[in-house]
């Protein structure tokens, strides 16, 4: 199973500014200390091995879109339609040209803008040979996608799309076989609800997609059910938008979780890897990198029998399980 992150930012797509790029270049030049490089390959090796990620790279700014590639039935498996979906669609065209099936199984956490806003720019929706199946815990998924393409918001109406598009409502607690994977669904606490998904391939590899989920302070006893849903997962992709303090104070009821709670849940579930996800849009790359380092440290401080690998998702990250 290969998990590919096309969009990892929460709430609102963001872009690097000229000032932030200038700062990265300045830091890189200082780190180089006057060295010269024979060619771009040598310079890239320096960036890769000697610069921290916030200097030599970026976590990106596209909103939620994750692809799961598994030895299933040959269809695409995609979680959410944030702005990262545009890049996925361009990439998928290339793979379809090389023979990949033009079948897309989408799994929707929920229907807020940052999770559907990429669909009007999803090229394969205009492909008459494509088959798109939108799986959602929400029965109003079709209404949400149609509404964002009404003329007041977008020039291309939903009915002008050429792909065959279907909507299927999934029920929490039920198990499904979709795209050659076993799929389970969990209801989560978020405005208008959200849904988490557990995907297991035939090799037994499991990925959890759990974003836009607030773990309410008044119902901590219910977290045992969440840990059970995460149980023994190879990868848990978890909403870690805020610090714990923010999530229980000024940002309480905003529908999101923290790195601290995500690590505790993964420890309780004995999961193998956690991907910090749905990054706060006001965070710079340095802020996200600091949050990642602090998360690794918290995991070390509270570790039980088995270490939990704490990854920090970025646009373009691939995790092979």
């Amino acid at each position: 199973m290969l998990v590919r992150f096309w969009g990892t930012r929460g709430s609102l797509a963001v872009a690097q500014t000229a000032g932030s790029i200038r700062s990265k270049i300045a830091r890189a030049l200082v780190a180089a200390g006057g060295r010269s490089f024979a060619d771009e390959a040598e310079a890239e090796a320096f960036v890769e091995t000697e610069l921290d990620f916030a200097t030599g790279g970026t976590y990106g700014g596209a909103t939620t879109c994750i692809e799961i590639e598994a030895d299933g039935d040959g269809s695409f498996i995609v979680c959410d339609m944030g702005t990262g979906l545009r890049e996925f669609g361009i990439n998928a065209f290339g793979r379809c040209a090389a023979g990949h099936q033009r079948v897309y199984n989408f799994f929707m956490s929920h229907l807020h803008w940052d999770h559907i806003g990429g669909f009007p720019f999803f090229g394969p929706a205009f492909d008459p040979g494509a088959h798109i199946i939108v799986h959602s815990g929400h029965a109003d998924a079709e209404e949400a996608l149609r509404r964002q393409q009404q003329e007041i918001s977008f020039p291309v109406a939903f009915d002008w799309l050429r792909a065959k598009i279907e909507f299927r409502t999934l029920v929490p607690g039920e198990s499904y076989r979709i795209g050659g994977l076993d799929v389970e669904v969990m209801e989560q606490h978020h405005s208008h609800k959200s849904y988490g998904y557990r995907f297991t391939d035939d090799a037994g590899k499991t990925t959890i997609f759990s974003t836009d989920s607030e773990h309410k302070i008044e119902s901590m006893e219910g977290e045992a059910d969440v840990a059970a849903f995460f149980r023994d997962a190879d990868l848990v992709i978890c909403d870690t938008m805020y610090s714990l303090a923010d999530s229980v104070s000024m940002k309480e009821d905003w529908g999101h979780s923290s790195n601290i709670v995500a690590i505790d849940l993964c420890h309780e579930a004995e999961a193998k890897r956690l991907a910090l996800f749905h990054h706060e849009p006001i965070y710079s790359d340095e802020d996200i990198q600091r949050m990642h380092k602090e998360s690794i440290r918290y995991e070390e401080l509270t570790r039980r029998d088995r270490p939990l690998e704490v990854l920090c998702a970025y646009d373009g990250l691939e995790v092979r399980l």
Partner: protein
Amino acid sequence: MMWTQEVREGAIVAVPRGKIDESTAQAFGTSLEEAVGHAADAAARLVLDCSGIDYMSSRGLRALTLAKRKADGAGVKILLAAPNGVVREILAISRYDKLFGVTDTVEAALTV
């Protein structure tokens, strides 16, 4: 998790000991809220002597928040005193050191 409590210099000083995680957080929270009640009755501050806490997970931290809400409503000030290095790091990583006053010693918490 063990819990002892005393009145010292007009304050309620509570001393939890052990790990505070999902297995002990409920007992920790119950004791904490009872201590807030005692402090409210005595019009005293509540000093949580953290020196005996090995570590505290998010469950314990959030129990602190629930107790703080009750304390704020009753006009009780909660201070976290003498956390060990691990707990101090956890308070910083979770940003709980922005929500609570943290002192190096119990004596300092009694006088600030």
